[in-house]
């Protein structure tokens, strides 16, 4: 598929960069529009929940928290892609970025779990966030090992 499209690694990286910046822009726009998003979500969602009170404020709070973690993760992703662009792949900085992304996903999962009390459907979001956090954590472990192997290889004369 890649050969058919004749895409170089650099072009692929440019696409990733573009998508990351789009994600950051979307998160910023979403942050500004949180009250509208909350109202729209409450109007379309089924109100199965443990807590029967109005969900507007909880959904707003949840979106603010998730947006902040989302921005932190997107920023770490931006740094990661910038380093890859500089051909610095297996470095401490990149495993740190993956660690940040992993923790952001886990915290988003926790936030969804707590606010699942107002809307049960948030538990599904929590599951996906935890799953993503776990994948990123394993990736981080792989990167850490690769960094240590690379360091050893660099110091082999």
């Amino acid at each position, binding site marked *: 598929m890649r050969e058919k499209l004749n895409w170089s690694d650099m072009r692929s990286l440019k696409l990733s960069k573009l998508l990351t910046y789009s994600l950051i822009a979307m998160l910023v726009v979403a942050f500004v529009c949180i009250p509208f998003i909350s109202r729209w979500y409450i109007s379309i969602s089924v109100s199965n929940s443990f807590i029967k009170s109005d969900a507007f404020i909880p959904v707003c709070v949840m979106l603010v928290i998730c947006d902040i973690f989302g921005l932190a993760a997107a920023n770490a992703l931006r740094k990661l892609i910038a380093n890859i662009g500089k051909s610095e792949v297996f470095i401490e900085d990149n495993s740190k970025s993956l660690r940040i992304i992993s923790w952001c996903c886990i915290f988003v999962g926790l936030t969804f779990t707590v606010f699942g009390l107002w809307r049960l459907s948030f538990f599904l979001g929590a599951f996906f966030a935890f799953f993503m956090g776990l994948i990123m954590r394993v990736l981080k472990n792989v990167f850490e090992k690769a960094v240590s192997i690379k*360091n*050893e290889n660099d*110091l*082999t*004369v």
Partner: protein
Amino acid sequence: MAIIVNLDVMMAKRKISSNDLSEKIGITPTNLSILKTGKAKAIRFSTLNKICEVLKCQPGDILEYSDE
């Protein structure tokens, strides 16, 4: 580290500079410096072979074990 690299001693004995040695054994001066300062984590047999060939010495003249 338990292994001590005595490359600088051997180089002084043979009166050879770092640049000359690195050129003759085919490694970069940076890598030679890593080896000389004891920062290296490993040495390839091929590198050791070339060093011994150029300096006309035995591996034991370059590497020394110390239990301290």
